[in-house]
């Protein structure tokens, strides 16, 4: 049955995150709306971050959470919580009047789970609340987000891909096959309907014949923000070496001082002062999006502009923060670049990346059309005289995988180096999640090449073999035990009244399950790669929904079956990785024989 013939489907999306989260959600929703045009989407968002959603024509309605009206008076002691509750109740009425067909809670926060619990819906994805008030998660991808992403474990599936897959899979199951949308791109310059009016004049007079590069000079979090002096040096390098380029600085009013600092430094070092302009503090969402859409490149740290540029089809160079989570929230699409500092990765330190490294990466990226990536990035850094920067950084280029390879965005390393253990674990976990929730994955070892392995990876992976085997055995035993418990309890007339032998048998099986669970948790603590198994096991067990012992034990068996599948995937990846590093036998005909003295025979 084609979904196109179906009646409208009322969908409520809860996105109480920041602007960047809103933009990522809109990307995922756009894909769903293209395939299921009957979706009628209402988005709940914070008043402060609603600007993007309000400019999207296919969003039916934007409902703003009245943060200023409800929360601030309480925080300032001007109103009581009772008054706040009354206001919140009034605000909720339109949301709870009629049950929704689909509720997507894409905030993954404590507050959003209560809101989801209050709103009636036929299908719910994401966090919600049970009758007893405890947090509840119904769908697989949300289990994955809660345990692996929010647990801080390495994985490399982009959040936009997770949300898109989560929604499209649910729609396919509940609504049927989608309409054929052809190869329509998810991102486009017409994503938003902007209200520019006279505001565009502020920007139109800037020279449109030049190649404009936007620099978003600050982020919402200071630890992610790159210093003004470094941005100034990048701007100076860029303008002095590329006279065809112009730079526009972007930011909020609070970033004005930083903007002044950059303008002062750059203006003193370049001859044409009109080649850099500051729009910091002068843009609302419409003008900001207009400028970003007209730029050829956006240079920024990890902030909302990265997603905005991705949506609008403008290329991005992200100066990554210390935390290597750009796999999940970095720029989305083809041909974006991310540069991260090796020293700061995994820490809360600000990115220790030099302006010369950023300029080198950008100049390589922006001349792809000429060198067609036939020269390596290492050579490019060398030609510029900044080879010494290479050891301090990692650079990635984004690529949308072909559908046959699983689709989604992948961050391809630009320097040929062995894979790090955390990235290897991220690869395995992403693969496991696809196997669990997509039902199909490329063969084990895809995206891991022999050249990426080295002895230190082997040192980490080899001891994991035994752990993976033990995990498989635990899961298998637990699955069978839970299955036995299910069989035993489903035959009983009552779970409250049972004879002594029945009671003992049920108790023994329950005790054994508990011991196996404890064993699994202990095993998970033995190695960072094993830890996510413990986390996801706890999440899955917490979300068992059965109301009888028979139902709960059946679900428990399913959980261990799922975990067991994951453990087998881990074992296969370990085997594959260890096989990759084994010496390869070379055919005799390919061996070049050393010259032998005359008359000596080949042995």
């Amino acid at each position, binding site marked *: 049955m084609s979904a196109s013939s179906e009646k409208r489907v009322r969908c409520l999306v809860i996105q109480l995150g920041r602007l960047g989260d809103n933009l990522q959600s809109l990307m995922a929703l756009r894909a769903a709306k293209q395939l299921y045009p009957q979706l009628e989407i209402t988005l709940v968002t914070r008043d402060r971050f609603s600007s993007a959603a309000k400019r999207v024509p296919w969003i039916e309605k934007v409902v703003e959470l009245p*943060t200023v009206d409800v929360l601030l008076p309480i925080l300032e002691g001007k109103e009581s919580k009772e008054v706040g509750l009354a206001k919140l109740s009034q605000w909720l009425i339109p949301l709870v009047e009629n049950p929704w067909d689909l509720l997507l809670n894409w905030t993954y926060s404590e*507050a959003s789970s209560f809101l989801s619990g*209050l709103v009636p819906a036929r*299908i719910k*994805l994401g966090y919600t609340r049970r009758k007893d008030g405890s947090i509840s998660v119904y769908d697989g991808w949300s289990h994955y987000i809660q345990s692996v992403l929010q647990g801080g474990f390495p994985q490399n599936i982009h959040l936009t891909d997770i949300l898109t897959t989560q929604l499209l899979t649910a729609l396919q199951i509940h609504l049927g096959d989608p309409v054929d949308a052809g190869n329509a791109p998810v991102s486009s310059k017409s994503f938003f309907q902007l209200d520019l009016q006279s505001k565009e004049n502020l920007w139109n007079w800037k020279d449109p014949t030049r190649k404009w590069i936007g620099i978003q000079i600050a982020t919402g979090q200071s630890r992610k923000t790159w210093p003004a002096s470094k941005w100034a040096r990048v701007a100076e390098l860029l303008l002095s070496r590329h006279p065809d380029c112009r730079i526009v600085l972007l930011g909020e009013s609070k970033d004005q001082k930083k903007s002044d600092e950059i303008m002062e430094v750059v203006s003193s070092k370049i001859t044409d002062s009109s080649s850099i302009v500051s729009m910091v503090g002068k843009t609302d969402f419409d003008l900001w999006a207009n400028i970003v859409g007209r730029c050829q490149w956006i240079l920024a740290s990890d902030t909302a502009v990265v997603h905005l540029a991705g949506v609008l089809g403008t290329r991005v160079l992200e100066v990554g923060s210390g935390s290597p989570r750009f796999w999940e929230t970095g720029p989305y699409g083809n041909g974006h670049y991310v540069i991260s500092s090796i020293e700061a990765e995994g820490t809360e330190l600000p990115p220790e990346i030099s302006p010369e490294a950023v300029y080198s990466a950008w100049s390589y990226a922006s001349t792809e059309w000429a060198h067609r990536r036939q020269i390596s990035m290492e050579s490019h850094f060398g030609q510029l005289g900044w080879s010494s920067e290479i050891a301090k950084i990692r650079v990635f280029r984004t690529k949308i995988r072909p559908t046959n390879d699983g689709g989604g965005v992948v961050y391809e390393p630009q320097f040929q180096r062995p894979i790090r253990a955390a990235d290897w674990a991220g690869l395995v976990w992403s693969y496991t999640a696809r196997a669990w929730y*997509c039902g*199909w994955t490329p063969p084990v070892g895809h995206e891991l090449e022999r050249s990426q392995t080295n002895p230190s990876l082997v040192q980490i992976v080899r001891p994991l073999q035994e752990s993976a085997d033990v995990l498989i055995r635990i899961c298998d035993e637990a699955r069978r035990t839970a299955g036995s418990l299910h069989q035993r309890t489903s035959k009983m007339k009552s779970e409250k009244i049972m004879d002594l032998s029945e009671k003992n048998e049920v108790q023994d099986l329950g005790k054994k399950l508990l011991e196996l669970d404890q064993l699994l948790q202990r095993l998970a603590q033995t190695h960072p790669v094993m830890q996510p198994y413990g986390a996801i096991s706890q999440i899955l067990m917490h979300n068992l929904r059965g109301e009888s012992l028979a139902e709960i034990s059946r679900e428990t068996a399913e959980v261990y079956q799922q975990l067991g599948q994951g453990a087998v995937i881990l074992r296969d990846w370990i085997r594959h990785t260890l096989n990759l590093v084994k010496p390869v036998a070379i055919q005799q005909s390919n061996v070049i024989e050393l010259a032998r003295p005359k008359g000596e025979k080949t042995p």
Partner: protein
Amino acid sequence: MATDGKRVSGELIEDQRKDQAEVSMLLQGLLQALLDEVKETK
């Protein structure tokens, strides 16, 4: 590896009418969590 629909999509939830106590509990939880979030980000 085939995947089952339930694992990926969640189950159908027929939300029953909530009683006043449950609504009150959820509403208070929502307000408190929102207040906590604002305090954390300040």
